[in-house]
């Protein structure tokens, strides 16, 4: 971490560590040998199972041994046990993977094993409630994925897994709860494409189902996004979400209002690339969809504003100056289309 000094150790201390490591290595190699031999002989016993536990504790990245462990469960242990016992074994394995993930949060094989355990959960606990166990596990899973997102809210694998979990639950969670979750994540740090993306999906569904009044809800969203814009005009995810809200720009009043709000921000932050770029985009939308409301003079005015902003953009965002030059050509083309 920045500013943190490295700790220095004496030669003796380093040598002592090397010795300890040498012993550990010898033990590890012996254990690996034992486990792989058993695997070769298709040993599905409990003793073999326990050996895989020991080995995976030391090295959870050893995917061959995870495979072997699953084979033991499927061939050796599950056929001899009741659903209740299977459930218990899976619970133990899941908590094993949780502990492993705390130390190794990015190892695919641990995640795989987790998912496999969840897929193996038998119907139960009773005939009347066949989904009880599954629901409990998926609830727990949601809790785990939330812990992951607490640690790194921008981990798109975790967001993806979250959608898998929400989709796999026998009894689905209310959409409103998911909306609140995205609110929390956005409030914590709105520089988060995944959170805004999830939010847009949830809102779209809520609007479609009529559970939320689209007009009022959109107003709240504009307010939220405006706060984010003013807090950090450089954050791209905010502008992309805004673009989604505005849509094609068919609502004239909203378009005018938003252009005004962005212009106000540009006034106090004149070098903001995103303000300029968005203004150009929205003003062009005005020209495209609402020219009927404007006189020719007004339209020419808009075009001049766009051209001026594009010119500023070439200085403020020089990496994309060719793009702005292309846009300039398009805008000039629009000039000819004015009646």
């Amino acid at each position: 971490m920045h500013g943190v000094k490295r700790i220095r150790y004496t030669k003796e201390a380093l040598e002592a560590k090397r010795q300890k490591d040498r012993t550990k290595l010898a033990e590890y190699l012996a254990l690996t040998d034992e486990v792989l031999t058993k695997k070769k002989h298709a040993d599905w016993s409990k003793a073999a199972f326990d050996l895989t536990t020991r080995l995976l504790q030391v090295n959870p990245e050893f995917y061959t041994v995870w495979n072997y462990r699953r084979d033991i469960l499927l061939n050796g242990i599950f056929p001899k046990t009741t659903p209740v016992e299977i459930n218990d074994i899976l619970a133990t394995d899941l908590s094993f993977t949780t502990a492993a993930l705390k130390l190794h949060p990015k190892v695919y094989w641990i995640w795989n094993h987790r998912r496999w355990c969840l897929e193996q959960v038998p119907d139960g606990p009773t005939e009347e409630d066949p989904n009880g166990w599954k629901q409990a596990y998926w609830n727990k899973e949601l809790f785990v994925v939330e812990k992951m997102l607490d640690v790194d809210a921008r981990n798109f694998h975790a967001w993806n897994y979250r959608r898998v979990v929400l989709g796999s639950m026998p009894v689905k969670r209310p959409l409103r709860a998911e909306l609140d979750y995205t609110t929390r994540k956005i409030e914590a740090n709105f520089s988060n494409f995944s959170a805004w993306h999830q939010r847009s999906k949830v809102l779209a569904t809520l609007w479609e189902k009529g559970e939320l009044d689209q007009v009022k809800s959109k107003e709240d969203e504009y307010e939220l996004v405006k706060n984010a814009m003013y807090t950090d005009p450089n954050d791209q995810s905010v502008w992309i979400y805004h673009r989604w809200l505005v849509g094609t720009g068919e609502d004239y009043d909203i378009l005018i209002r938003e252009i005004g709000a962005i212009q106000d921000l540009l006034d106090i932050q004149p070098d903001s690339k995103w303000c300029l770029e968005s203004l150009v985009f929205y003003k062009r939308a005005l020209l495209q969809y609402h020219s009927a409301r404007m006189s020719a003079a007004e339209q020419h005015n808009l075009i001049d504003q766009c051209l001026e902003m594009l010119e500023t953009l070439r200085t403020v965002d020089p990496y994309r100056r060719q793009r702005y030059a292309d846009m300039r050509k398009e805008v000039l083309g629009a000039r000819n289309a004015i009646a």
Partner: protein
Amino acid sequence: MDVDAAVFGTGLSESVAAAALSKAGFSVVHIDANAYYGGNDASLTFDELIQWAHERTTPSEDKEPTYISVQKQRYTSISRSSETLPQSRQYSFSLSPTVIPSLGPLIDSLVTSGVSRYGGFKLLERLGMFDRPGVVRSVPSSKEDVFKSRELSLVDKRRLMRFLVFAAGQFEGTMELTGRENTPFFGFLRDIFSLDERTASSVAFGLALCVSVQDPTLPALQRLRRYSKSVGRYGPSAFLVGHYGGVGEVAQGFCRTSAVSGGTYILGRRLLSITQLPSQGRTEKFKEVGRKYAIELEEFPERLTCDMIISSPDYIPSELSSHASAVPPPLSSTSGTPTDMYPVARCIAVIDSPIRFLATGPSPETRTSGDTSSDEQAPQEKGATGEVDTAMLIFAPSSVSGGSTTSAAHMLVTGEGSMSAPSGRWIVYLSRHLLHEDEKTSSAEELLKPYLNATMSLIAPSISEEGSALPIQPIFTLFFIQNPLSAPPASDAASTILVPPPVTSLVSELADAATENAEQVFWKAAQTITSARAERKPQGGEGKGETPKDIEVDSFWPPLDVIDDEPTLEEW
């Protein structure tokens, strides 16, 4: 006993220096007049605290030891309530309440020296500003805070963010700062960043921990940057509070490491005399090979001899003060806080109900953020009640009626979570710098009463039988004024009596400043001792006794002896 250095006082600076010297291979004897470690930074049990106050309020006697008479100059206007608290040993009262920044010299030294293994720390839970009785407002310090704030207008949010980004980066030499480094920080925020008064107050007093509107800009910006970089290292707060009373325990940890490396510790002995030994022809009588000083302690049979003395002014007898020199303070960002030369009014109080940091008046409503079905996933926060165990509260100037209109005051509360109080009890520390002459005639109690009352207003009142609200009172209070002592002149010349420079009493800077001073003392002492040793090396090759081994010192702390094991799954 014959040593290279004698260190007097086991305060934080002296303890860090002693530990570094011992680890480097020098022989050290470390002496404290008290029966406990920590000196002026000590952590005391309740009974020890009462005794401490008593010793400094009894009328002076004729043959009073230097230590006690200097202590009586240091600590004045002492008054306390008459209660006695049970469970005395479960309290750790700090004479120097501090919060330690997560990135800084003390943390570095704790880790590099291995002393961090000896102690525990608690992350500060909250830092707020007193708004009005019963109400504490948050200090917006991050993008998240600014975004979520409902108080700031959109334009204010933009301005504050612009400032925070500026303050987190390389502001030295920027156009905004050049020429304004010594102008008041509060004015700088208003004029250059157009922050409104309330936001400027939050930034200056809540983030940069200024004590007055006159505090200069550059040191304030440097503090602010250091604190904002400290956020996230161990958690959402920039600051740690040491277990068992903070820096007293830390100082003790350094003493322990010093002892492990060969340092000798002598506590609870009065210093009788320090004698300079004649420089030519050291006599056979004392059997040392030319040491410079002899020290006599009460009820200690051996005479101690050493080449140099490191001491706070509390121990140096007047005859020797002209020979002492202060180590020049380090040219770092912790210097320049103008607080080191001002008296501080302090209060230590004990309460038996928790303090609450609430943003709106104390109402039992909790915020609902949407559907109630989302509550199952919303974290069950203790924060909903606002109760804090270990937190800091800042009183900006003019925020408390009857308080100062020009300087800020600080409140630190520590409870069971920081291992400094029994369950159901909290220690409240108040401090207020006395920057003006007219304040010096008031008693500590008068100066701090308004702040104590303001703090009490944050505790839920109890309801009497008739149903009226009774404000809570502390179950114990102690007030005093801590005065700066005049230090001997700083000089670069080699001196065999070294005094660490005075340390700022600013709650968030004290620990790091003491550590930096310790490092300065260490280098100076190492140099002085090495030349003293060289002097005593017999010329011409033959000599009586052993020639002392040459000690190479190339860093403040030597490499660690043991590598700690990393966490494994084997415990699962």
